[in-house]
């Protein structure tokens, strides 16, 4: 009998703490498959963010570190510069990367650090209870924008970090994907694989994959509706695109 599917060994055989319909589970699985298929488990070091994915090391079976909120690209810099033979990735949410860690991601990219960043954009702070993120959509109701995000109220606009990073000469690859549906999931995996591949080839800069990911709990929707919302709403502010490389 042919084996047509098996669990990747890089993903631990345990249940996660994520909410039903959360995108982190899919993203973890894709990441684990990529590390497995590229055969880099024994030289990969991952960086978990502060946010819902802080416990990513409980699910991903690679050496991992948990760092202060937003500082992952600086930690990755310290690791990669002293260990150029290792594959270093950070896994960061939109609060982590696009709010508190803006300086760190911009400057890691600006220095052309040879690291890979997996950027989960779910348009909301998840772990702290669904507050506005820089990536929250206009009109989106969150715990801190209860009338819907409104720039006239000083709440700003959705921040397109990937577009900013793609402008910098220090990035070698920036792509935005979405977990809404099988084609998007396949594209996300291919993008991750490409990003890691670039680092394995010692490409001279930072590779980043932004992933539009559902948060049904704080979007106050069913998981199925959340997937639709990514395609119908999020993609307007965050178009799916290979932005660089």
């Amino acid at each position, binding site marked *: 009998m042919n084996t047509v599917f098996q669990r990747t060994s890089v993903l631990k055989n345990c249940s996660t703490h994520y909410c039903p319909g959360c995108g982190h589970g899919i993203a973890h699985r894709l990441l684990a498959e990529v590390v497995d298929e590229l055969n880099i488990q024994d030289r990969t070091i991952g960086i978990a963010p502060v946010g819902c994915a802080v416990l990513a090391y409980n699910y991903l079976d690679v050496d991992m570190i948990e760092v202060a909120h937003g500082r992952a690209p600086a930690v990755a810099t310290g690791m990669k*510069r*002293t260990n150029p033979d290792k594959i270093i990735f950070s896994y960061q949410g939109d609060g982590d990367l696009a709010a508190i860690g803006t300086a760190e991601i911009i400057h890691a990219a600006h220095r052309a650090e040879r690291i890979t960043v997996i950027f989960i954009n779910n348009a909301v702070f998840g772990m702290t209870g669904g507050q506005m993120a820089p990536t929250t959509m206009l009109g989106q109701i969150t715990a801190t924008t209860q009338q819907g995000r409104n720039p006239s109220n000083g709440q700003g606009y959705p921040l397109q970090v990937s577009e900013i990073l793609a402008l910098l000469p220090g990035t070698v690859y920036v792509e935005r994907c979405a977990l809404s549906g099988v084609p998007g999931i396949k594209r996300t995996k291919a993008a991750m694989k490409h990003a890691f591949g670039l680092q394995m080839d010692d490409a001279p800069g930072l590779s980043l994959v932004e992933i539009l990911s559902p948060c049904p709990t704080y979007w106050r929707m069913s998981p199925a509706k959340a997937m639709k919302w990514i395609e119908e709403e999020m993609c307007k502010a965050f178009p799916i695109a290979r932005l660089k490389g």
Partner: protein
Amino acid sequence: MSERILMCGNEALAEAAIVAGCDAYFGYPITPQNEITAYMSERMPQEGRVFVQSESELAAINMVFGAAATGKRAMTSSSSPGISLMQEGISYLAGAELPAVVVNVMRGGPGLGNIAPSQGDYFQATRGGGHGDYCTIVLGPASVQELADCMPLAFDLADQYRMTVMVLADGILGQMMEPVTLDPKPRRELPPKPWALTGMKDRKQNIVRSLYLADGALEELNNRFMAKYRQIQDNEVLCEQYRIEDAEIIIVAYGIVARIARAAVDQAREEGIRAGMIRPITLWPFPSEQIGSAADTFRMFLAVEMSCGQMVEDVRLAVAGKCPVLLHGRPGGGVPTAEEVLEKIRQLTIPAGAA
């Protein structure tokens, strides 16, 4: 390098760190320690090691965090305002039990303060500094030679105890030039680093973290830290005792202030005043036992510091009410002179009218 050379404190500590096997330096410019960053930018690449000028002190300490987690010897340096920014990372280093060396060439504060020498960061350095229950080992050198000698000791202590060691200097020590000899000989047997993140080749996953959510887990971790800290207090105290055998007044001073106080002690002795000095070299752990046992015999303690009264609190705790403890403090970049310390000694020891 074993010849005697003339160097400023900042460059001497930088070269001493290289001799001590520092694999990586991460830093952000701030006065009065800019010579360290400039020196490292040139010398570290020459040695095939890592230098990164970070975008902030926040980033610098987190780069140290990353390099240290892979088992490398990593350091950063800054001055007071920059060290405040690093406190987040120093707390995480403590929680994650990572070795790191941080040099603080103190300047006047609070706020942007000034760029004159100060000891105003004593509380911040010796009380942990960031959030949570933790300590860092703090070394307070008093000469360029001792500053250089602190570096291998700092790396060794950091590796042995898996914690941050802070070298607490000041603007004078960083800037002034003195002859120095750099000693490359290994000093301690150090434990291996099986916890380091190196990729899980031939072993199970390593995780470096400071989050402990399970009921009681964090309390257990903190209790283990406290046991480690007690061990350090028992074994790693360094201090110098100077002319204290028969002293009626004992100055307690550290760092550059101890150099000034020493001159005042010698002058007082020439005037027939029985003065002495205890100079803490480790500020945490503080030489409480040495000061406490001196207080069993002697009459008076005078803490002299370039701050409004920070170290004096540790002296009072050590003396525990057995003798009076007084303070001569100069904050905000003020540097006490030997003459003013001597005058204070005279006031305290010569009975009214006798002079």
